[in-house]
């Protein structure tokens, strides 16, 4: 009877319109399920057995991606409760901690998934280096990977400001102060003052929208953290994955 029901279900117009094929319990459907699904089609239909060895990849890249997805989900959840206004931001975080159901869980998950993502990007990079997987024809994908590492760090750092507590405020104050030491375009940097850069027009001013970290910095970091950087990371990830497939293998995998 169950067999009959399954037959009826998978052959129905609705099921077929969604999945286009039956259950992936035979080789043909296992191939269909991968290349007819937008989420799965970043995979090849078949993979070498050696590429599945856990002790080769340790799943590090996959875990990094998964943490990014998790950060997106928890991040969007947090956005419902957060106002990028210096008078409210800190209260919002306290509300998340003490009032809102699940607020603590989501904030903690977001925080530690972020730490995890930084860590796992590093580990993934180390794994790729140690197995020489960046060599031709995958040179450029390594470069894209480095860009992703940089974006991950900036993402993490821009998010650091949002709780608007002492930790956030001073970590970002120290960090953005660095920008004012940039040679040529920072007021404190070598040849910065000589080129006419002042606290009100140099690179640090552009970064935080003022001479000190304040409301403008908060809204800038908020937009960078929630919109700009995630978009860039998503695009770079698409390139990163696409090129794994298109560049071919650099080794006997």
């Amino acid at each position, binding site marked *: 009877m169950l067999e009959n029901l399954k037959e009826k279900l998978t052959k129905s117009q609705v099921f077929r319109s969604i999945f286009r094929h039956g259950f*992936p319990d035979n*080789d043909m459907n*296992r*191939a269909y399920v*991968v290349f007819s699904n937008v989420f*799965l089609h970043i*995979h090849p239909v*078949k*993979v*070498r*057995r050696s590429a599945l060895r856990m002790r*080769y990849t340790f*799943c590090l890249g*996959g*875990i990094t991606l*998964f943490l990014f997805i*998790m950060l997106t989900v928890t991040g969007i959840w947090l956005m419902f409760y957060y106002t990028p206004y210096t008078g409210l931001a*800190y209260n919002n*975080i*306290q509300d998340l*901690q003490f009032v809102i159901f699940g607020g*603590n869980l989501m904030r*903690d*998950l977001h925080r*530690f*998934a972020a730490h995890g993502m930084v860590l796992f990007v590093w580990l993934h990079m180390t794994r790729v*280096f*140690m*197995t*020489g997987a*960046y060599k031709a024809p995958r*040179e*450029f994908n*390594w*470069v894209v990977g*480095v860009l992703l*590492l*940089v974006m991950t*760090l900036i993402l*993490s*750092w821009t998010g*650091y400001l949002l*709780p608007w*507590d*002492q*930790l*956030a*405020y*001073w970590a970002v*104050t*120290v*960090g953005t102060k*660095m920008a004012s*030491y*940039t*040679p040529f375009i*920072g007021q404190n*940097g070598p040849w910065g003052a000589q080129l006419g850069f002042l606290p009100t027009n140099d690179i640090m001013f552009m970064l935080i929208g003022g001479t000190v970290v304040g409301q403008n910095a908060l809204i800038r970091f908020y937009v960078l953290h929630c919109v700009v950087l995630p978009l860039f990371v998503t695009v770079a990830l698409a390139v990163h994955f696409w090129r794994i497939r298109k560049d071919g293998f650099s*080794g*006997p995998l």
Partner: protein
Amino acid sequence: MENKVTREIFPRDARKSYGLVELMKGSAPIVKKEPEDTVYTWPHLIMIELICALLVTAGLIILVQFVHAPLRSLADPSTTPNPMRAPWYFLGLQELLVYFDPWYAGVVLPGMIIVGLMTFPYVDTNPKGVGYYTFSERKFAVFNYSFGFALWWVTIVIGTYLRGLDWQWYWPWSDHLVHMNPALVTLVPLHIVFVNLLHVSKDVGKALCDVLFFAYFAIGMAIPYFFMRKFYDAMGGARYFVFMIFFLSMMGVGLKIVLRLLFNIKYIVVTPWINV
């Protein structure tokens, strides 16, 4: 040797096409391909990914039962915490501020780290060691990566656990509430050391430092060129130059840290604009 075909056992039919077919173990026909050791992504790879995702989720949910995201008091521009700590992944850079001026430690070095990382696949000409873990086949590459990696993580550990008030060095058993006396250590630029040791004028001392600085890079560039010809020839001029600039700069950072910690040297090169 050759057996002449006298009679066709299987006469060709002009209306049909023929192919070579072999029987082998498997679950699907492979057309125009050699037999290969592959499996279907679904379910083999998908299952691994799913398990990984579940384990990470479970791990994180368990973790956050014990540790929580910190929230200090409301941001207050008039009260500076001491010490001010950057997020842990930037503590390495913050620690480098002890050894270099901000324009170098905070801007130029991070830039060089990023660009240097990007050059890896273009300067590594060793065709061996692809697709498996090996140290013996690419000792120099692994050494370089590990050195940079170690520098990054050691400075993070120092920044996290061994720095206290005023970013002074505190051992875990030191009293973290008492300010260290900064007067205990006097930092001097290298040329002052020459002035005192060799009794030369300040300008001569400075010139000596400049010569030393450039000699470090010049000799560093020259040694493999003259004495490790194989290494140079494998890379070619452009790759060699790019690699050595980054390599010598990285080693220079290590060297400067040693000079600063052991001999209290503040700067090697002093100019009116920049000090290194």
